[in-house]
Structure formats: structure tokens, C-alpha cells
């Protein structure tokens, strides 16, 4: 790390924060004392506004310092208005293991002003209705990008109007011609769309529009970060504050440079405190379509590839062309994965789950409530075609081996879980299959639960085999 590094999160200590708090230990924030509050502030687990004494005029300076100190490394920018407004950026850290990533990458699907009404409607509807339930989360798409391919201001305005009539999703208005973008803005003057894009050639006109309509603005400089910084500096001097960075997305030649550019921008923001790059980024996997492969499937494939890489490498928003489930499902699941809180072990509900159509003779198995363990076990049983009762024991979200070693999964918790599950009324037998990694609990479980214990495989992939050979 270099000398001009600004206080990134790693350097921020609870003591630094504490020294600026009122130190009254008034508990109004809900914490026991100011030090506890300071620790939670550093971990981004509470909001500074919870400190009421800090509102006092005498703390004005301290408050301002704290706001500055706790400011995210990357500015947060809001696109759209109302319930469906999308926040992008606001990142606190470069690596997700340091602290949770905020504001999942917003995905936009494009339409053009030369598409038929039917095509526009169907693409808008697709984007709006996209929904996949994954571990209790609804995976969705966030925005519509309207592009002017006609270069006709009236056509663009009509297209924007048409889209806005059909959806509340925020829009991105795409044209390098400010007059065309303005024409689109006239259709939705208060909707705060993202404007794409200011370049070295049109920055003045685009800046005017951003100010006039209070819109966030993309600055675009493909593979030229110096120009990008120059555009940002100029926009800020101009009065445009909500700026989004587009360093160019190259799906073919230039892919390495693309990954580098996004990485360098985020590092400059998070480690070096480079204010001009401390802004959200926009990736445009849609550019894969400017160099189409042999067929649409292959081009979609390439677009998906680059989108996946950019979800990992610091894109805060993406514009995508293909509306294919086999592309957007893995991308939205990836985004969900990357944006979960890495500090919390993901736990599922501790309860009895019926897999298939179990009856009074069906096997009874137990597993832990660590989500990864649970889903793997459930998946393995399901794919084996067996019907079973699976009792999920509360192991405080730890895996079997860690739970047993750490006494979070004990003979007692297992015996209790059996009793509470009601499985004793569901089956005639009293034979319990436990994970191989919990083998050493078997004697104790038998004593406490009065069930016979059968030790299962070390890995749940062996369950099918076990049931086939030993269950009868």
C-alpha cells in the first residue's frame, strides 16, 4: 500500500470513532455504552443517526468528522424514484471477506426505439416479471435501458414514453447525442433516469441535462482511465455529483484490460482514496453483441461470461441484451451469492422436512442447519429418488463436523429435535440415520432418544447407497 492511502475500513478502529462520540454512555442508541456503539459503527451494523446526543450543536464538528470517517469508499448513487428506485455503489470495501458488499449489482435489460411495440412490451414485461425464489430470496432484474438506434429524437421520446407507461422500473437513457437524450427526458422529466453517457465529445451538453433534470450521469471512456478521471473532475466542477463510471466492457479482445480497469478503479477508490474514482461502475456486457458470434446462442454465452466476471469484479450495474433464463438465472444466483454477508453462517430453519412422499416405513435422517450442509444433503437424497424424513437440527449454522466438535450439535440437541419434530407419530420404526461425521454421538443418542442409531456415510453422496443396501 502506498503513502497517500486514506483511511480505508481496515484502518478505521473503534477507538477512532469512540473518541468523536459524546461518551455519555446514555444508551439511547440501544447499546450498553459508547464503545459498543463505536464498534458496531465500524462494522456497519448500526447507523450513526441513532446517536441522539450527537445532534447537539456542540458536537457539530464531531458529527461531520464521523460522517466523513464512515463514508463508504464508493459513493452511493440512486437511479429512479419511488419504490423501485435502485441504489448502486455505496461499497465499503474491495473484498467481500472484509465486510459485506452493499447494493447488489443492478441488472438492466435493453430495448430500442426501433423495436416494435410488441417487442418493447415483451422485453419490459420479461424484465419486470423476472422472478426466481432462491433460499427465500426473490431474484429480480432492476432496470430498463432504452437505446436510440434511430437517432431520431421523436422516436426516442415515444419509446421512452411507451416503456415508462408499462413499468415503474428505473430507466437508463442511452445515446451520445444530448438532444436525443433530452427528448427522452421530456417524456419522463421527473423520473431520474440514469443518463448514458457523457464522453470527451459531448460532456458539456450531457452535464447540462444532468443538472437540469437532476439525473445521475454515466461518464464513458473505453479503456482510458485518465480520460475517465478527467471527465469526472470536469463533471464535479460543473456541479454534477451523481456520476457513474463506464471504463468500457470488451467481451473479446480487451477482456483482460476490462477486468484490469474495473479492478484498478475499485482499488483506487478503496485503498488509495481516489475521490475521482470513488464512484459506482457500469458494465456493458451488451457489447458482446457488437461482435456477434456464429449464432445468438454463442453471443449470449459470451455476454453471460463477461457479465459473470463483472459481477465478481466490481460492476455496480450491468446492461444486458439477452433475455434467456439459462443466462440470467446463473447471473442472478451469482449476484445473490457474492452479495450475501460473509460474516454470518447461513442457516436454514431447524425443522423436519419431508423429501418425496415418506410414509410410516420411511427412513429418518438428521442433518445440521448450516445451509450448505442442508442443501447438499437434501439434494443428494432427492436425486437418489428416496422418500425420507429429514430432521434439521439447530447447530447454530455450523456444519456437522464443526458442530459436533464445538458442541453445537450434541446428543441432547438431536434427541430434542427428534421429540419436537413429531416424527415418532409419523413412523412405526425407531431407526435413526445420523451423519458419519457425528458417529461418535451414536451411543449417547441411543441412550437419550431410545432410537436405534445407524451411522451414515461421511459424505451425503453415500446416502443413496446406504439406503439401497441397508434400509429394510
Amino acid at each position, binding site marked *: 500500500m502506498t503513502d497517500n492511502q486514506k483511511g480505508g475500513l481496515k484502518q478505521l478502529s473503534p477507538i477512532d470513532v469512540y473518541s468523536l462520540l459524546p461518551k455519555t454512555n446514555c444508551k439511547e442508541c440501544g447499546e450498553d455504552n459508547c464503545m459498543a456503539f463505536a464498534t458496531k459503527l465500524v462494522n456497519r451494523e448500526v447507523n450513526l443517526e441513532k446517536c441522539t446526543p450527537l445532534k447537539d450543536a456542540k458536537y457539530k464538528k464531531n458529527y461531520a468528522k464521523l460522517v466523513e470517517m464512515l463514508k463508504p469508499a464508493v459513493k452511493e448513487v440512486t437511479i429512479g424514484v419511488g419504490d423501485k428506485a435502485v441504489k448502486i455503489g455505496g461499497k465499503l470495501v474491495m473484498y467481500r471477506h472484509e465486510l459485506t458488499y452493499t447494493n447488489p449489482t443492478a441488472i438492466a435489460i435493453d430495448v430500442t426505439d426501433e423495436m416494435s411495440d410488441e417487442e418493447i412490451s415483451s422485453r419490459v414485461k420479461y424484465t419486470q416479471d423476472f422472478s426466481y425464489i432462491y433460499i427465500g430470496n426473490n431474484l429480480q432484474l432492476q432496470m430498463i435501458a432504452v437505446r436510440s438506434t434511430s437517432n431520431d429524437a421523436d422516436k426516442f421520446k415515444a419509446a421512452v414514453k411507451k416503456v415508462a407507461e408499462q413499468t415503474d422500473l428505473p430507466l437508463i437513457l442511452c445515446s451520445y447525442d444530448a438532444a436525443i437524450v433530452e427528448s427522452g427526458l421530456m417524456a419522463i422529466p421527473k423520473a431520474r433516469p440514469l443518463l448514458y453517457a457523457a464522453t470527451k465529445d459531448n*460532456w458539456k451538453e450531457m452535464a447540462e441535462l444532468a*443538472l437540469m433534470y437532476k439525473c445521475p450521469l454515466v461518464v464513458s471512456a473505453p*479503456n482510458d482511465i485518465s480520460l475517465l478521471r*478527467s471527465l469526472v473532475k470536469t463533471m464535479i466542477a460543473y456541479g454534477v455529483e451523481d456520476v457513474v463510471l463506464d471504463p468500457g*466492457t470488451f467481451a*473479446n*479482445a480487451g477482456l483482460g484490460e476490462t477486468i484490469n480497469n474495473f479492478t484498478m478503479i475499485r482499488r483506487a477508490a478503496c485503498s488509495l482514496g481516489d475521490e475521482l474514482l470513488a464512484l459506482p461502475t457500469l458494465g456493458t456486457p451488451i457489447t458482446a453483441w457488437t461482435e456477434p458470434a456464429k449464432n445468438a446462442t454463442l453471443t449470449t454465452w459470451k455476454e453471460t461470461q463477461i457479465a459473470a466476471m463483472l459481477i465478481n469484479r466490481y460492476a455496480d450495474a450491468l446492461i444486458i441484451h439477452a433475455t*434467456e433464463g439459462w443466462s440470467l438465472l446463473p447471473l442472478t444466483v451469482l449476484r445473490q451469492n*457474492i452479495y450475501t454477508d460473509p460474516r454470518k453462517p447461513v442457516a436454514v430453519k431447524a425443522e423436519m422436512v419431508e423429501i418425496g412422499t415418506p410414509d410410516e416405513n420411511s427412513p429418518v435422517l438428521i442433518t445440521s442447519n448450516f445451509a450448505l450442509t442442508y442443501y447438499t444433503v437434501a439434494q443428494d437424497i432427492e436425486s437418489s429418488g428416496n422418500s425420507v424424513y429429514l430432521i434439521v437440527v439447530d447447530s447454530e449454522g455450523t456444519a456437522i463436523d464443526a458442530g459436533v466438535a464445538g458442541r453445537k450439535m450434541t446428543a441432547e440437541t438431536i434427541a430434542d429435535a427428534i421429540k419436537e419434530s413429531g416424527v415418532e407419530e409419523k413412523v412405526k420404526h425407531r431407526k435413526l440415520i445420523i451423519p458419519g461425521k457425528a458417529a461418535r454421538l451414536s451411543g449417547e443418542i441411543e441412550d437419550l432418544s431410545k432410537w436405534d442409531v445407524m451411522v451414515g456415510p461421511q459424505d451425503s453422496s453415500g446416502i443413496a447407497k446406504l439406503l439401497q443396501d441397508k434400509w429394510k
Partner: protein
Amino acid sequence: MPEGVKKESNQKFPSELFDLLTGNNELELQDVDILLDELQLLFQPGMMAASPRVAALKAAAKPTSLLDAPFSLPIQKYPGQVAEVTLGATKKDGGSRGKTITIGGEKSPAFYTFENPTPNPPVVSFDVFDSKTALPRSVRNELGDTYQDPVSWAKFVVDKLGADMVTLHLVSIDPLNPKPATPAEAARTVEDVLQAVDVPLVVGGCGDPEKDLAVFEKVTAACEGERLLISTITLDMDIEKSAKLVEKYGHVALAFSSMDLNQARELNRRLLEHLPKESIIMDTTTAALGYGLDYAFSIMERARISGLLGDPELQQPMSSGTTNAWAAREAWKKLDPQWGDKNLRGPMWEVVTGLTLLLAGVDIFMMLHPAAVKTLRNVIKRLTTKSGTFDTDKIANWVSSTL
């Protein structure tokens, strides 16, 4: 430039302008009086077009040409370096492979090529199983009949698909099988595959620590000098014995830990007591996209960064069993038609899992679907070779092109 406009000064302004000025920290306001003068100038009748007056107001103090803001590369130096490991041995080094493959050696996080070039491109090894295995249909479709026996399967992926490496999974040795293969039989299969193809080989056990070690004992001796990657050595095995076999017969150890950096450190530490760092690769577990990939990704990214920052126990090249992507039901299951053809969704699941871990720092991928392998190889090539010139205008065209 002042930090911002003081509220007291602003109160002189018409309230509608106040709205426009607050929150604008970058306004050039050396002196409020000057601004008021300008305002008076600007507010002459005729210049009061509905909203553009606002922009005009700002423009008065605004740049008229692009401000210079050169960028210097945000380069960081790392005290640590990942070990370089060579797999396979040619005749002159006591083996029989047509080529060897070297991985690792990184001095920067994955593909931070603005900092350091990638010293060795990551490699993809094709999975081959030695006996009947449940494969997703979309994979079977690609392999034809070849997957019925390991020799023809290995030949197919090397000769027809240009595999750089092959991973031979000895699943037949599993003690849970009705008739588990003996260590001697397993060693013969490995020799047969070595005969059939000349790429470096990974040899995988069944996951039973005792049986695997018994098999590795035969295999390492029978294939002396080939620099096989022995997959895997785990904490519940006799580590000293495993490591000594690997060392004595000239192979490489794959140290497997289950998503726990401390476990990974301990295993590397114990292996390093018997093996040089050039003979160890580590696998911290790959979970499928949607089924724990986030854990796998962060463990790997942390491992790599810790290694670069100087942790000597995390400086081994990393391996990923990317085939685990197929454990996700979304990869193989027929879903509602809106989620697309599973023959595309499945391999894409493997691709996205692989690309994510590529960016976390994986050096060797063990993969299954030919299309997924091809994609990873293409991306790796793109990321590790100079692009030369490319057309930035063409990219900009996406905005106005009918795609």
C-alpha cells in the same frame, strides 16, 4: 474552494435557488457577493427559459474545457509469492509425458496484470471416471459412448477435445462398492491411461482415507517419476506416510481441506515438513454456484491474499473441483421453460462457478462439460495474452446499433 455553501449565506437566495445549491459542494464560491452579481446578470429578462436557466447559472462558474486528471496505476507490492508447481514429467525428467504443465508463481492477486503479468496461465483438467458414474445427460450427450471406459474417455478428451490434462477418478476403489477394485487393479488402470494419453495426469481417490492411501501407495510406486497430482491428501489420512510416498516416487500432493483456512494451513504445514513447496497444491473446497460458492470464493480469495501478504502456509497454487457445480439442481434439472434449455443452463452453471473461482485465484480446474472447459480455456487465454490493439469505437457503438 470552500467546503460548501454556508447556510447563513444561502438564506439570501430565492428559495428555489437554495434547493439547487445545497448539496453542491464543489461550487466555486470564493465570495457570495460575486455570485450574487452573476445571478443578477443572469436573471435578465429573456434569459429565463423555464429550467435551463439553472444550468446556465452553473455554467457561469463551470469549466469550459475538460480538466486534466491523469491516472497512475494503483500498484501494490506483496512480500509473498505463490509456489510454482510442475505437473507431469517428460522422458528426460524420468516420466513419459509429451509435455509438462507449470502453474502458480503469482506475485499479485489473480489477473492484476497492471501490477504483474500472470506467470503461468491456469490450466483445466478434464474429469474421467474409471467406472460407471451418474453423469448429467447434457454431459453424456457430449461424450458419446466414450465414457464407458476410462481409456477411451481419456483418449477422447485429449485427442478430440485437446485436453491439457486429465483427472482420473478412481471411484471403483470405494469400499462401499459391491466389488471394490484393489489397489493393484487401480494402479493398472492408471498405467493404462498413462499409456493411452501423453498429458500430465491427476489421480483421484474415492474419499475413504484408508483405502485411498492404500491405492496411492501402489499408484505412486507403479508410476514413479511421472509427477502425477495425487488427489487428495486430507487431515484424516496418515499425512506423513502420504507425503513420503509422493516425495519418494516424484509426484505432487493435492492437499484438500473443507472450507476452513486454519485446516488448510495445518495441512500445508504438515505436508511441508516432508515435501518441498514445489510439490504441493491446495484445494479449499469448491461449492456450486448457489450452493455455497460464496464461501468457496471468499476462502480462496482470502487464502491467496494471505499468501501474497506473506503467510508461508498459504502460498500453494490452488485447485478447484469445479465439477461440483453440477451438484446444483439448477444445473441438471428440467425447470420451467423460462429458465431455458438445461443443455445450456448446465454447462453455464459450471462456467460461472469456474469463472468466479478463476478470479479468486484458482490455478488448476477439474471440470466435466466440454463446453465449460472450452470456455474457461478461452477466457484464460484472453486474460493471459496481450490483446494488441482493439477497437474502442466499435464498443461504443453498442448504444446505437441494432444488435
